[in-house]
């Protein structure tokens, strides 16, 4: 319900069209006190969307869970955002770089307001960036070379560096895993290890606190005072124009239920449809399924570098040789329209795509060569502890197919089933595999989360500070430094090619294929932006 004050504010901002809609809303707000609300509310445009997971955490800094990032894009805005060509564009701020590449000056655009009515200031951006920099690995790299980050006035933020950091703008613009969202400075003062408890952002949607049920549903309403940019929307960049009154995210524990709800018109949108179930949707002319984004997800296997047998590069190579992407993707997805065989650690369809070293992976595996290599190695039959999640459909097939391949190659595999949450806890354990540790597990990443050496979590060779598996790899770290120094795309591509070859050579991790996730929507929902992050601006709901 709109407050009186907001109603007044709204009149002043009425110039941007959709006035009838707003009038209806105000009428609804006035009437709701008199008990006639239902008829007015019926005119509200509400999109009900089934999301891939329930929202339980509201702090986008404390977690990298996709659903929390998606939530944050509703509620918060970002300084700079990436468009569909991977190019950073101004969003809340424009920027200028000094000639010596050491000083970045950001200028906030006019009209930015938080949901509580306060203006967004450069001080808010400063505090938000600092909190983000504690947690995000890309942010940490920037803050390593930061001299100062200060708000010089209400609208200006100056970032000075000790040495040039060419990918700074790319890092700020990234959409995964942890984009730097701008919060009020008072909220951003929360330590990065504690969850925030405020729902105040400056994004195109407001949080409806009364309707939030963790893990079940969350409702957003249009933030009327949000001023969109003039440019057309493209991925996370451009004008975030909202054409609906409310967006309600719901979670359903069962895809079957979600599909039925979509078919019967109870919901309008389903973020992820299992490919096998697409034929059910095809029978209906009130529902369309389509690809949300052409990049999809990269599925990966990661080995533990600390313990035998995978502390030995030869054995890691044998394991990689045994694995066939075709077998894994064929089993996981089935329909070849929805997966790509892709040996590039940076993903296929990205600027840094390169498949050097992944030949066996993309050509059906080579079990004979794997057997031979394993026989030559020091492998003594130690069981390989493979963690198999039992409750996440998108990672169900990888361990099972891989276990069969590894056994064919001569490995002893101890496949240990567990729920995903147990796996997440256990993969953080550096104990021996026989004492609660592990040897190999599988997970999936959105391609924008792995498409550059700056953000790909696996390609980090800092031992205990690296991602689970903890490789100590100085050569990799040196290559990453080279990448940071690269100033042009060509230079970046050249370094990325070396990283690809190196990653495959030491078997940093095993990409096991790239798959696409179809979404489905009611035909009433039109102009939905194709984007890796499902966004609800630009979209319209017809009657």
């Amino acid at each position, binding site marked *: 319900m709109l407050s009186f004050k907001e109603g007044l504010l709204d009149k002043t901002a009425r110039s941007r069209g959709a006035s009838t809609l707003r009038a209806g809303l105000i009428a609804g707000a006035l009437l709701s006190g008199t008990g006639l609300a239902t008829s007015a509310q019926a005119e509200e445009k509400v999109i009900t969307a089934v999301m891939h997971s329930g929202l339980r955490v509201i702090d986008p800094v404390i977690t990298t869970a996709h659903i*929390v990032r998606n939530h944050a894009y509703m509620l918060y805005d970002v300084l700079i955002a990436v468009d569909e060509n991977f190019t950073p564009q101004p969003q809340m701020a424009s920027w200028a770089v000094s000639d010596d590449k050491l000083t970045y000056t950001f200028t906030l655009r006019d009209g930015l307001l938080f949901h509580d009515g306060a203006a967004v200031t450069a001080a808010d951006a400063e505090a938000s960036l600092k909190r983000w920099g504690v947690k995000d690995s890309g942010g940490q790299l920037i803050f390593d070379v930061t001299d100062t980050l200060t708000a010089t006035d209400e609208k200006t933020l100056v970032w000075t560096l000790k040495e040039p950091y060419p990918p700074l703008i790319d890092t700020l613009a990234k959409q995964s895993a942890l984009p730097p969202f701008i919060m009020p400075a008072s909220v951003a003062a929360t330590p990065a290890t504690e969850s925030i408890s405020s729902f105040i952002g400056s994004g195109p949607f407001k949080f409806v606190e009364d309707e939030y049920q963790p893990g079940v549903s969350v409702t957003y309403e249009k933030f009327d005072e949000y001023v969109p940019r003039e440019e057309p929307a493209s991925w996370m960049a451009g004008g975030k124009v909202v054409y609906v009154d409310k967006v309600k995210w719901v979670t*359903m524990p069962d895809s079957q239920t979600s599909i039925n709800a979509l078919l019967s018109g109870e919901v309008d949108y389903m973020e992820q449809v299992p490919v096998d179930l697409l034929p059910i949707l095809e029978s209906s002319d009130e529902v369309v399924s389509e690809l949300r984004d052409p990049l999809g997800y990269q599925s990966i296997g990661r080995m533990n570098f600390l313990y035998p047998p995978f502390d030995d590069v030869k054995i890691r190579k044998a394991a990689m040789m045994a694995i066939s992407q075709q077998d894994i993707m064929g089993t996981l997805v089935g329909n070849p329209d929805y997966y790509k065989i892709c040996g590039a650690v940076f993903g296929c369809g990205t600027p840094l795509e390169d498949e050097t070293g992944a030949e066996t992976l993309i050509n059906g595996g080579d079990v004979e060569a794997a057997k031979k290599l394993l026989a030559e190695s020091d492998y003594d039959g130690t069981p390989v502890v493979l963690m198999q999640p039992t409750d996440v459909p998108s990672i169900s097939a990888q361990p099972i197919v891989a276990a069969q391949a590894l056994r064919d190659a001569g490995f002893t595999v101890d496949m240990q089933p567990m729920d995903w949450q147990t796996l997440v806890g256990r993969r953080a354990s550096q104990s021996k595999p026989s004492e609660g540790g592990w040897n190999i597990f599988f997970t999936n*990443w959105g391609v924008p989360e792995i498409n550059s050496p700056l953000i790909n979590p696996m390609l980090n060779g800092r031992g205990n500070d690296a991602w689970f598996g903890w490789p100590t790899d100085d050569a990799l770290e040196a290559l990453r430094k080279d990448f940071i120094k690269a100033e042009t795309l060509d230079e970046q591509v050249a370094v990325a090619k070396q990283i690809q070859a190196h990653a495959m050579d030491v078997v940093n991790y095993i990409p096991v294929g790239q798959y696409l996730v179809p979404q489905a929507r009611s035909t009433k929902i039109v102009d939905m932006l194709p984007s890796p992050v499902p966004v609800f601006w630009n979209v319209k709901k017809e009657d």
Partner: protein
Amino acid sequence: MLGYILKRLLAVVPVITFVAIFVFLLLRLTPGDPAAILAGDAATPAQLEKIRTSLGLNDPLLVQFGTWIGQLFRGDLGISLISNIPVSDMVGQRIWPTINIALMTIILSVLLAVPMGVIAAWKHRTWADYAVMSFSVLGFSVPVFVIGYIFIQVFSIELRWLPVQGYTPPTEDFGKFLSKAILPCLTLATIYVALIARMTRASMLEVLGEDYVRTARAKGVSETLVLFRHALRNAAVPILTIIGTGFALLISGVVVTESVFNIPGIGRLTVDAILARDYPVIQAMILLTSAIYVFINLMIDVAYSIIDPRIRY
């Protein structure tokens, strides 16, 4: 009577205490780390350690237990590790759907099952008896989720009579509540009807053989009156008992139906919490459901003495 209730209430204390200790220990011995779940895919071990400390998970077990019990005595169920929301708020949001569905299921079940059981006993060893008994055995033999899917397929997808999923509070729109609650209640009721019908039949069979029933019949009291006034009244105690002990069964059904029909109740809340290792939520939920179970059975014991004058405390 009051003394009896007080005595029974006191006996609840050790039960609940044991449940509390048991659940607490069970969870702390469970592998899985709420911090890792909270932090998502890209966290490093050092970051996890910091989160663990800020959640209080690095404190000694005894300290954690003491903190929790201390909170409980102040009526504070703690704060969800994952959502950072007071557990009492989460329970408050989620308990009503479950209570409403469960109540409706119980009413529906009793209305269906008691007549079924009475008829089966009355028409003992006829087709009616066999039909009721077959249904009641069948009700036990098909998994709840299969029944739910079949109902959805038939009533929502083929016939399009009822919505597929969801929940609307009865206070908001009673018609909508009913239309959405019918299928989950029917699904849940199959097993409950089976249970109650069986017990009613068995209990009635026993009572129908008693002398006073024969006397009543001999006096020419109408058969309906004999059945529902004389016999059923005396057969009621075991039927009530089974409704009480069946509560556990209802909970297990609720957990599943809430998933199938997407009802935001406490069953799903608890399962989600277990899978996410959200300790305060699991502890509160198990303690709460146990307390409800104990309380319901206490109520039933008290109800005995009202229904069956032979029982006196």
